[in-house]
């Protein structure tokens, strides 16, 4: 074996490609820059012209505080060894083989880009949408700006009780004037202004104690200017198993959450334009369609909870079925990673096949030299933005161990200039971090007169025009 030398320790910089400029990509870069004694260059790629992944395209427009984390990412981007290459897609402009010619280490941070399906009849009827498409749409994500959502119906259901489901329900229920001062996409605000939705149902398979949403999220739903909130008493109450589990764990956050939900039972409704109805212990069985292929209802089976051997409470459907008349359904029951061309995938969990972030050969189950994963594409879609920081740290620890052992790639053309020559050929319309800062400045200044945090560019053409390419 030829000795690849020790890049990053006096033999020229360690060259690292990070694929995906969401929070995880920045955390990986941050940990690398903090590695003691390491001389490192990090090239961060994203298929979009803009960085920050779900912080820009996922976090709800009325939750700007959560987006404050971008200040941390700006600091990472200011490191001399950092470059951003936006509008560059792996599999389209560059291949894994290209990356292996230019980098010592490659880290995939591509997240979980698709929705899980419910696997029930009627899922593809007109008016049934993955919740994440609606989220991408109101957030001005270029992939989703052309989507159509018919808000002329009176009743909508959101299936799922995670934070995305809560976001979708909340945006549907907000008064337009509450959203007008956010960075919601203008076209989305226009459609929401014309919304005729009067009732929104948020539907969970299990009970209030098992719902994934947090206490602040559920509290916020009770404080909307344009919407009342209610929950059927029999669904807000706790069954014996849930009570016993809370007794055992003494989980105060969950107790508080249940208290808030139960307080909604007694809330008067009808005063505001809309009503948000929380429903629990219901499993979707079928999305019911009309003659024109449109959604007319949602068939739901009442569930009963049972305890698994580890004490987790799960739901099983009973024969007790109801049909909820709704004209619009948003499905939000989890996400899955998308396989990358030429990178081993673990289909069971919807992630890149990995061991603590080291990508594994599917046959030998041993690490593939130079390839790593971090974030949702490594562990699946769990946790908050900050959870990706320790996750990225674990991957970087493995990268540094491997570097110490000389287990890195020996790229034929490790100089950054070589990569930039290749990019000039494959994707001349790539965006730098300076380009992004310019876009950002214009977005923010456009928002200022209306008291909005920004007005987003939502199409590649607009963004290209600004940076004059």
């Amino acid at each position, binding site marked *: 074996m030829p000795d690849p030398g020790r890049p990053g320790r006096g033999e020229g910089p360690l060259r690292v490609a990070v694929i995906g400029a969401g929070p995880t990509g920045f955390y990986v870069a941050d940990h690398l820059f903090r590695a003691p004694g390491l001389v490192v260059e990090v090239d961060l790629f994203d298929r979009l012209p803009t960085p920050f992944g779900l912080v820009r395209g996922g976090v709800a427009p*009325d939750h*700007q*505080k959560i987006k404050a*984390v971008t*200040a941390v990412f700006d600091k990472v981007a200011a490191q001399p060894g950092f470059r951003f290459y936006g509008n560059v897609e792996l599999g389209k402009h560059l291949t894994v083989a290209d990356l292996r010619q230019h980098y010592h280490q490659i880290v995939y941070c591509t997240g979980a880009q698709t929705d899980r399906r419910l696997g029930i009849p009627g899922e593809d009827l007109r008016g049934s949408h993955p919740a994440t498409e609606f989220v991408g749409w109101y957030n001005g994500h270029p992939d989703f700006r052309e989507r159509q959502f018919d808000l002329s119906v009176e009743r909508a259901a959101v299936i799922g009780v995670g934070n995305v489901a809560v976001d979708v329900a909340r945006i549907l229920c907000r008064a337009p004037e509450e959203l007008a001062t956010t960075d919601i996409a203008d076209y989305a605000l226009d459609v929401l202004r014309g919304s005729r939705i009067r009732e929104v149902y948020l539907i969970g398979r299990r009970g209030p104690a098992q719902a994934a949403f947090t206490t602040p999220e559920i509290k916020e739903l009770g404080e909307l200017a344009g919407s009342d909130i209610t929950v059927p008493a029999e669904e807000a109450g706790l069954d014996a198993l849930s009570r016993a589990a809370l007794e055992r*764990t003494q989980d105060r956050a969950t107790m508080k959450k249940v208290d808030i939900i139960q307080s909604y039972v007694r809330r008067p409704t009808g005063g505001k334009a809309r009503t948000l109805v929380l429903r629990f212990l219901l499993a979707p069985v079928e999305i019911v369609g009309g003659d024109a292929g449109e959604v007319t209802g949602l068939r739901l089976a009442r569930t009963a909870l049972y305890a698994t051997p580890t004490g987790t409470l799960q739901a099983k459907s009973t024969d007790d079925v109801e049909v909820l008349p709704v004209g619009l359904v948003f499905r939000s029951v989890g996400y899955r990673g998308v396989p990358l061309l030429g990178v081993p995938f673990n289909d069971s969990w919807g*992630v890149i096949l990995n061991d603590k972030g080291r990508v594994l050969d599917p046959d030998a189950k041993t690490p593939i030299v130079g390839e790593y994963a971090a974030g949702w594409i490594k562990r699946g879609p769990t946790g908050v933005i900050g959870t990706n920081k320790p996750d990225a740290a674990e991957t970087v620890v493995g990268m540094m161990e491997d570097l110490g052992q000389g287990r890195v790639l020996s790229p034929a053309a490790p100089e950054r200039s070589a990569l930039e020559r290749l990019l000039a050929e494959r994707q001349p319309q790539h965006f730098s971090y300076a380009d992004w800062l310019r876009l950002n400045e214009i977005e923010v200044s456009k928002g200022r007169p209306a008291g909005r945090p920004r007005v987003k560019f939502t199409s590649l053409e607009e963004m290209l025009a600004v940076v004059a390419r």
Partner: protein
Amino acid sequence: MNIASILATKGGQVFTARPEQTIRQVLRLLAEHNVGALVVVGGDGAPIGMLSERDIVRHIARDETLLGHTVDSVMTKTVIVGTPQDDLVMVGHTMVESRIRHLPVMDGGKLVGLVSIGDVVNAQRNQYQGEVDTLQIQLSQSGPAMDH
């Protein structure tokens, strides 16, 4: 968070032993794979017991001929089995209360993984660290409050 998020970063390999193997044989497996426990599986591949370093230490202290004994004479026969959807908070409680350090995980009748108490602690620590970090950033933000 559930067990699936732990198994996702463990490469999908589960190290198993057969009940008729000798302790000498399985000690080699433990050392080779650098693990603290093996799932003992029957003919159908389903777990019938767990064999940990601790089981071996406890027995060998009483009987030095242990190395030639078979796995089924030493293994712990009461096994709690998890599913990928099991919640980590409940799993943690169950493992601590039942004093078990390893939990085999089955999905659709197939053994799909082994989770240790260390894995559970690590995943929960990362989750809490992440939440604290995220909250601190939000609290330290001085700009206009947009949250309603």
